[in-house]
């Protein structure tokens, strides 16, 4: 029972765009050790994106490769959630964005292990090992900085409050996801929502950070309506293939 093209595309785009965002830290990390840590996570996500986009291309059946999908689509054709395209800003924003996404990613892949699409289940099994570590990493940094100095606490709370409005989309299903859940191909996001909230609540509490009370949520990424940031990401990421199509090195 194969999943739909758009469903798999969306999973691949999440991994690809967050990977690219993290790769922008390469050479700019606060210390060498964290520079390497973030690059490792970026590479894990890029590996997942490759598996997913390759599979999406096969499902579409029009001969598009992973590279075609990554380099030759415009912003409105990307299906990633808005959270992953948000700017790196400071270390706090990067860590909080990562933590919010990792918590979703972890439970999502855990559920995807039982997908009736065997290919997706296999990808989930490989990815879950990586994502388990990502979640541990971003949780520890959230706690360390939230419960750190006055300055780090202030920055972390600001990041939590800034990024909160992009978290609703993670666990609010769009029609494609509802269909995938009904077919037993993808997880039921309404079941992931309480798991995500419990995890976030637990870590924020340990980090002495306030769980936001605002309930207004931004959405649209999964259907191709993006914030202005995605265009800049694509301009950088796609430049070479747009200027010199098919170039290899």
């Amino acid at each position: 029972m194969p999943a739909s093209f758009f469903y798999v595309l969306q999973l691949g785009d999440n991994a690809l765009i967050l990977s690219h965002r993290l790769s922008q830290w390469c050479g700019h990390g606060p210390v060498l050790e964290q520079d390497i840590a973030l690059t490792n996570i970026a590479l894990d996500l890029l590996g997942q994106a490759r598996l997913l986009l390759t599979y999406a291309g096969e499902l579409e059946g029009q001969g598009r490769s992973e590279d075609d999908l990554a380099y030759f689509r415009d912003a409105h054709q990307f299906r990633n959630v808005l959270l992953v395209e948000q700017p790196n800003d400071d270390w706090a924003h990067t860590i909080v964005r990562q933590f919010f996404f990792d918590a979703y990613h972890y439970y999502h892949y855990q559920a995807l292990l039982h997908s009736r699409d065997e290919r997706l289940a296999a990808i989930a099994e490989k990815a879950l090992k990586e994502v388990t570590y990502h979640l541990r990493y971003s949780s520890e940094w959230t706690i360390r900085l939230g419960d750190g100095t006055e300055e780090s606490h202030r920055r972390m709370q600001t990041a939590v409050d800034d990024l909160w409005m992009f978290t609703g989309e993670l666990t609010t299903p769009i029609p494609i996801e509802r269909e995938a859940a009904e077919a037993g191909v993808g997880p039921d996001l309404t079941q992931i929502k309480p798991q995500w909230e419990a995890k976030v609540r637990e870590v924020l509490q340990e980090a002495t950070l306030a769980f936001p009370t605002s309930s207004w949520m931004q959405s649209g990424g999964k259907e191709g309506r993006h914030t202005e940031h995605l265009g800049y990401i694509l301009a950088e990421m796609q430049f070479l293939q747009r200027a010199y199509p098919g170039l290899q090195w």
Partner: protein
Amino acid sequence: MKEWPLWEVFIRSKQGLSHKHVGSLHAADAAMAIENARDVYCRRNEGISIWVVESKYIHASTEDQEAFFDPSNDKVYRHPTFYKLPDEVKHM
């Protein structure tokens, strides 16, 4: 930012019998040092166990090499080269 202390990293590989020194890194505390070691020194599946110790707790021999180590050189009886091993005993 106040400079984080330096840590020495020891890794035991899958086949290895003991931890071996692989290098050093900076971290704010032991937990972070182990996380960092995982990311910096175990990216190619090198290890199954990590030890970290703050560099300041390592004490090294500082004496003149020759005077310190040479006296052990001329005590042949410390090397077990005088025993006849039966053929049945292998790999000694």
